[in-house]
Every structure is written in structure tokens, then in C-alpha cells.
């Protein structure tokens, strides 16, 4: 199983040649990628791969079938086309549709190299498993084994319950250490022996011995120690855990929920895959923007012959077309990258430019600094969508592309244009991008009321949870936790706790508790 994951068909010579040529050009402009393997698939195979999230082998589950059914249908009626698929793996696998015109294949190949470069170099992908193709096949084999042993229906039901909680992960945890790590203390080697005493006590800042009483004043340490002790006593009394609210609910469940072996494994598979896919969600605008930037660049300079220009223009504009009143990540991404390149080419950055109040002069601003290309490479390395928008979205850009923010109007049950002010647009855009516009949910207590009940908290930021879904998700959560589960949230502007005990739901306003 583990080795026979790919169909490994030889690429037709003509495409192979295009691939090699495009690859050479891409490298010559500084793109840097893993080896990329292209395969040509027919429509059904492509839809299958797409339904599987790009992978040839996934575990059996109806949702892949649902996705496949929809893809095939919409494809057959010409409603939608998948031009390409590429997966973040080493080597990168990319798939071409056999019925595409040659110009489409060229475009796709160029586009794919943009993605491959992004996968390899963007910081947010640095922790992803580059052997995911194997890993996915491995997951599939494991789940198939459980199905053989436990039965299809049981495993499927459990997967459904896990999927319900799938996005309750902490996407930043791969980059940030949440727990203190003593061995990582800087300059430890420079310290004298007696200096190590305070490593035993938490709350101290590292310092040279002679500065210690200033950096870590004894009375403050004493006060903090007391507070810590009080908290500890309190905690032991309540027997609650975790110490800090934990965002990786799945990890918490893995550690503490009463799961059978196979259930534990299935849940960890779902969690692994969620972490693998998370960066793609975090960088959708950038990733598509970057790939589109490069396919345009490579195609218009080297890619096509005269007879292909019209088709190329047609397909490219289809990709970056704005559907009315919806943001197209391809479009926003490519325009923003071009905008950055232009600004850094013309020196439209830095304090001098920012402080210039004469709009006419700002628009005319042109210093021949030529840092554009260098800048966008840097941007693709260190940013994700949120920081990308935060850092580089300008009022001029918003006005030029006719951005607006919209908001829900409950009295009319519809979304209405709220504003065309830059600040509000930017804020709204960042809000939508933060955690994909999904709610933040934390585990607060795994021993709520000292009865082993699970208490989650929704970090309310002005948008309430969708009510029916919340109850149903609690039902699934309870299947895993086995004891009653609660979530603290806000309903109709009032803090509320929604509970499910395995039989019925309860909704209580907080003040009544």
C-alpha cells in the first residue's frame, strides 16, 4: 500500500518539454522548489484527487464521495473547472487535466511552480509534513484496518464526530512554545553557579548576578510567589485543569478523553491532517496571488506562441475575475504583490513617503530604487494573509479596486454595504481572515464542578455562534468526552452556558448560574 500511492504515468513528451522549459525559466528568476512531478489525469481521476484534497489515497469516508459527486456534476454541466491541483509535498505532485488545451497546460505548469516555491519557502509551511503523501496513505491504511476490526458504521460515526471538532486546533502552536522551557534560557553558559538558583523559581527574569536585585526585586518575587501559591491551592481545591485555557481542543481530548485505542488513533489522524491543511488556509490570498503573479510573468515573457494569446488572456482573466461583490483571492493576491513590487521599485515606502501629505506628489512619487522583486520574495517568505493585508493594504489600493465592507442587517435579513472607509475595510478584512472568520474556542476546565465535565469557552468578539450548529457540535463532543459538556458563549447579547449531558440540551444565562 505504502509504495503504490501514485499512478506514475509518464508525462507526454510535449508536456515534459514544456515542463522542463518552464522549470528552467522559473529557476532563473529565483523561484526555489522541490522536485515537481506532473501527471495527466482524466476528468474523473482529477475530480477524485480533488475530492481527496489532492491526494491519491485517503481513508474511506462519505464526505469525499459527496465532494466527488458535486465536482463531477458541476464539471459535466460546465459550471466549474478545476485547472490544476498541486500538493505540498516533497516532491511536489501536480495534476493536469487531459482535456485541457495546450495553452491551459502551460499556464497551469507555470502557476504550479509558483505554488511549489511558496510551499517550500513560506514560513508558515515550514512545519508541515513534506512526506504527507505517504502519511495520508498511512492514515488510510490505519483507518481501513479499524474498519475491518470494528465495523464500518462505528468507525464512520466516530470520524463524523471528530470532523465536527476538526478545526478546534491551535494553528500557531507549531511555531510558538506555549509552555516555558527551562533549557532554552539564554546565556546560561555565561552564568555562575549561584546564578542558577533562581532558575528553580519561576517568574524571574534572567540577569547577571549583580543586577539581580534590580531586575528581580525580592519583594515582587515574594508577592508573585504568594499569588502563585494561592492559585495553586485554589486549583488543587477545584481540581481543575488545564492551568491555562487551551486552544488545541483536539490535543486536550487526546490527552484526557476516555478513548479506546482505535478512537485515539483516529482522532490523532484527524488532528494531524487539520494541522497539515491549516497553513493553506492561512495563506490563501498570498499563495494564489504568488502563483498567479508568476504564471503571468512566465507566460507573457516565455510561455506562449502568437496563436495562444487570446486563449491565454481569456483563461487568465477568468481566474482573476471578480465575481460581483466577492473578494477573489487570486485577484487580491496578484494585485497586491504587483502593487508592492511597484511601490518598492519606485521607492514609495519608508517614513519620507508615509509622512508626505501631498497626495498629488505621492501619486507621482518615483525614485529609482528598484527593490521590488527583492521585496516580494521577502514578503512571500515571512508573511501570512493577515500580516500581508495588515502590512501592505493601502487606502489607494482599496479605492482603486473598489473595496467595501459589508455587515449583516438583522431587520432585513441580508448583508448590506457598510462602508468604503479604509480603516473599516481593513479592520473587517482582518477580522474575516483571523482564524478564517471562525470562532475561537478554548478548553477552560476538564473537571468542571469537580465532576469530570468539560467546559469550553467561546471567546466572544462581537459575533454570536450559530445556534443549531452549536448544540449539534456539543452532541458530537459529548460522544468523545462521555461526561456532560458545556460551552460558555453569548446568546442574544447575554453571557450564556449551553450544555449537553448525553440526553438533552440546556441553555442557561450566566447570571442564573
Amino acid at each position, binding site marked *: 500500500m505504502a509504495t503504490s500511492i501514485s499512478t506514475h504515468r509518464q508525462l507526454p513528451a510535449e508536456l515534459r518539454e514544456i515542463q522542463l522549459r518552464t522549470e528552467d525559466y522559473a529557476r532563473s528568476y529565483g523561484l526555489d522548489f522541490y522536485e515537481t512531478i506532473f501527471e495527466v489525469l482524466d476528468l474523473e481521476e482529477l475530480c477524485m484527487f480533488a475530492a481527496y484534497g489532492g491526494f491519491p489515497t485517503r481513508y474511506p469516508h462519505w464526505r469525499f464521495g459527496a465532494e466527488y459527486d458535486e465536482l463531477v456534476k458541476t464539471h459535466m454541466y460546465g459550471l466549474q473547472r478545476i485547472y490544476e491541483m498541486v500538493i505540498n509535498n516533497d516532491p511536489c505532485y501536480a495534476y493536469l487535466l487531459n482535456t485541457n488545451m495546450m495553452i491551459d497546460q502551460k499556464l497551469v505548469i507555470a502557476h504550479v511552480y509558483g505554488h511549489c516555491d511558496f510551499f517550500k519557502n513560506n514560513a508558515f509551511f515550514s512545519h508541515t509534513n513534506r512526506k504527507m503523501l505517504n502519511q495520508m496513505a498511512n492514515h488510510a491504511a490505519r483507518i481501513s484496518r479499524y474498519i475491518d476490526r470494528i465495523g464500518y458504521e462505528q468507525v464512520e460515526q466516530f470520524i463524523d464526530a471528530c470532523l465536527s471538532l476538526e478545526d478546534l486546533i491551535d494553528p500557531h502552536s507549531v511555531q510558538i512554545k506555549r509552555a516555558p522551557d527551562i533549557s532554552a534560557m539564554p546565556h546560561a553558559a555565561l552564568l555562575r553557579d549561584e546564578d542558577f538558583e533562581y532558575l528553580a523559581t519561576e517568574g524571574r527574569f534572567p540577569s547577571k548576578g549583580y543586577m539581580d536585585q534590580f531586575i528581580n526585586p525580592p519583594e515582587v518575587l515574594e508577592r508573585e510567589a504568594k499569588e502563585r501559591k494561592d492559585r495553586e491551592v485554589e486549583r488543587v481545591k477545584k481540581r481543575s485543569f488545564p492551568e491555562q485555557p487551551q486552544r488545541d481542543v483536539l490535543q486536550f481530548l487526546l490527552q484526557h478523553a476516555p478513548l479506546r485505542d482505535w478512537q485515539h488513533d483516529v482522532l490523532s489522524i484527524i488532528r494531524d491532517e487539520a494541522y497539515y491543511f491549516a497553513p493553506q488556509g492561512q495563506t490563501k490570498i498570498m499563495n494564489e496571488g504568488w502563483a498567479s503573479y508568476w504564471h503571468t510573468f512566465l507566460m507573457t515573457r516565455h510561455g506562449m506562441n502568437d496563436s495562444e494569446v487570446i486563449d491565454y488572456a481569456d483563461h487568465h482573466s477568468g481566474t482573476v475575475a471578480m465575481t460581483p461583490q466577492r*473578494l477573489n483571492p487570486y485577484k487580491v493576491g496578484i494585485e497586491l504583490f504587483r502593487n508592492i513590487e511597484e511601490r518598492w521599485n519606485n521607492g514609495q515606502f519608508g517614513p519620507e513617503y508615509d509622512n508626505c501629505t501631498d497626495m498629488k506628489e505621492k501619486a507621482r512619487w518615483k525614485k529609482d530604487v528598484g527593490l521590488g522583486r527583492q521585496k516580494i520574495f521577502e514578503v512571500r517568505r515571512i508573511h501570512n494573509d493577515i500580516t500581508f493585508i495588515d502590512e501592505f493594504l493601502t487606502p489607494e489600493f482599496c479605492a482603486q479596486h473598489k473595496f467595501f465592507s459589508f455587515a449583516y442587517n438583522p431587520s432585513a435579513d441580508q448583508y448590506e454595504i457598510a462602508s468604503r472607509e479604509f480603516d473599516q475595510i481593513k479592520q473587517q478584512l482582518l477580522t474575516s481572515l483571523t482564524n478564517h472568520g471562525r470562532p475561537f474556542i478554548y478548553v477552560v476546565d476538564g473537571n468542571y464542578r469537580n465532576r469530570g465535565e468539560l467546559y469550553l469557552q467561546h471567546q466572544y468578539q462581537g459575533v454570536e455562534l450559530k445556534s*443549531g450548529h452549536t448544540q449539534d457540535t456539543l452532541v458530537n463532543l459529548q460522544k468523545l468526552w462521555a461526561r456532560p459538556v458545556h460551552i460558555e458563549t453569548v446568546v442574544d447579547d447575554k453571557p450564556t452556558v449551553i450544555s449537553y449531558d448525553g440526553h438533552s440540551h440546556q441553555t442557561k444565562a450566566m447570571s442564573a448560574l
Partner: protein
Amino acid sequence: MTRPIDLDTQRFKEIVRGKVRDGLKKYITQGEILGRQGREVVSIPIPNLDIPRFRHGSKGSGGVGQGEGEAGQPVGQGGDQEGGLAQPGDQEGQHIREAELTLDELADMLGSELELPLITPKGDSTLKTKKLRYNSIRQTGPKSLRHFKRTYKRALRRLIATGGYDPLTPVVIPTHEDERFRSSSEVVLPHANAAVIYMMDVSGSMTDDQKQIVRTESFWIDTWLRSQYDGLQRRYIVHDAVAHEVDEDTFYRTRESGGTRISSAYTMAQKIIERDFPPADWNIYCFQFSDGDNWGEDNTLCMQKLQNDLIPVCNLFCYGQVESPYGTGDYLRELKKIVSRFENLILSEIKNREGIYESIKTFLGKGK
């Protein structure tokens, strides 16, 4: 070879049809793609299952869009739609779901979605048509019917046989003897004709919403029947207290007020059948749509006409009752009393737009 994805798809379809995992039924979402057929926009259902998750509701949500418009202008419906940036999908290049469809495709889809049986027409023994089918080859004929491939094949064969063929400069020129032509022969096909008579109550109690439902439903019925018969004739009758035969356009636009006398429509339908469609040669379909209000004393006459004059000559007589805020729906009850006696009388209640599919299935599910 069975691929794993086929098993997943099969499993999914079983869930949607409610055969397994009954508990998931409430999560079925009726996604749709929009098809365009001439003026009509038709929707093609694409069911999916929604996995419940902690999600934001509409209240207090919003997003960023791109395009023209003043503050306050609506940009989308609330409800289930998720606000915010277009949800990033895993696939590339998604476009709006609107398709240009042919009537045949529509009928195919309808047939397969609703699992409609093919209709066995009656009267096939009486009417026959002759059609030309190009199904053979001969050596003479007009140039326009020349069979290109066969002609060149023969020419090539002749060249190779005579040794005149040079693979390096492969020039093949057919001579007169090489030419082959398509030839037609007459086939006699049974010819099945169908007539559809639509009747609609346009009394004051039918609102525009109900008419819209009737319009959609009759569009689908048309589409299906058209795919099943060679020729389809349609007649439209509107009625309040009196009935009128009208054209299609008027049928959907007329707005009358006043009372309802269903028997008037039946009389008119009977007249049309006698005049245009001798039942021996025609497959006759009657579809009646009403909100179910009728003058009480008229009911007896209606039942009489229906049982004696209409039902015996029709393949199907379908009565669809649309729910109206004003109508009482009594008429359906009257019909229910006699429905068991006639195999080709079909009743259906259409509560709202979502009820349309179910109703079409009821009407056409018998394969008549």
C-alpha cells in the same frame, strides 16, 4: 475496477436517501446549481451533508467585497450563507454556478434525479411516421453525401495494390471508382403524440407566489413529457367562475378576481379534447392547479365530469393543490374520496417551492 471514491460516493448517496445513518438526515443541505434554459432559470439540486461545527451566526457578522454600490445597498441574503471572505476552497478556479443547458439535458437530469420511469405511450399502433435513416453505403450518389473516410480508404487500398503508394510522399487521390456514398433507407417509426392541458385557477385567492410555483412545475412537466414524446401539444385554460382557453403567456399572467367554478374548466378541457385530440391517437395529460377553493354546489358537477368525461380519456389526470393563505383546500378532500377508484388520477399537495420536486415525482412517477 471499483475505485475507493465510488464506494465513498455510494455511501454518501445511501445516507442522502435515508437508507443508512438516519440521524444524519437533518444535516442534508440542498445545494443547487442554476441552469439557464432560454428565459427559465432552473435549479439542479446538489445535496450535501453539513457537518455541524462551532460557527459564527449571521448576527454581527460581515465581510469585505469588491465592486460598485452605495452604503446600505444589499449584497447578499442572510441565513445560512457564511459572511466574510469567500471561503477558500481546496480547488482552484471556481466559477459561478450557472450553466446553459439543453432541454434534453434537463430532462435527463430530471429523470435520473427523480428516478422517473420512462413513459409507455399508448396509440402507437395507429400513427406511424416514415423517417429517412442513413444506414448504408452505395457506389453512386451526390457529392454532398460522399463518405470521406471510406472513399480514401478505398483509394489507398487501390494505390497500395497497384504499387503506386510511396510512404515518404503519401499522396492519395481518389478516382471515380473509389468513391462511396451514404445511402438512406426508409424506416417506419411508431409515432407517439401527447397533448397536455393545463388548467389553473386564477380566482382572487391565488397569489403570485402560487402562480410561480405552478409555472415552475409546469415547466418541468413540459420538459419531461417533451423528452418522452415526438410531438407535444399544449393547451392552457384559466378559470374563475367561467373558463377561457388562453395562450401560454396569458396563462401565467392573468389575474382575475371573483369566485371559482372548477366544472367550467372541465367542460372547456372536454371541448378541447373533442376538437383537437381524439383520445384514440393521443396521449392526453391534464394538469390542474388550484388552491382548492370551489363553490360548494359545484363539486358534484365536477366529480361527475371528471369521472365520466375526463379521466377515462386521459393517460393521467393530475391535480396539484398549492397552499394559499386564502384557500381552504376543500377540493382536495372531495377528490380524495374518489382517488382510489382511478389508477390514473393523481393528487399532490404543493406546500412551497421545495415541494415541487416531490410533486413532480408523484405526478410522473407512474410511468404513464
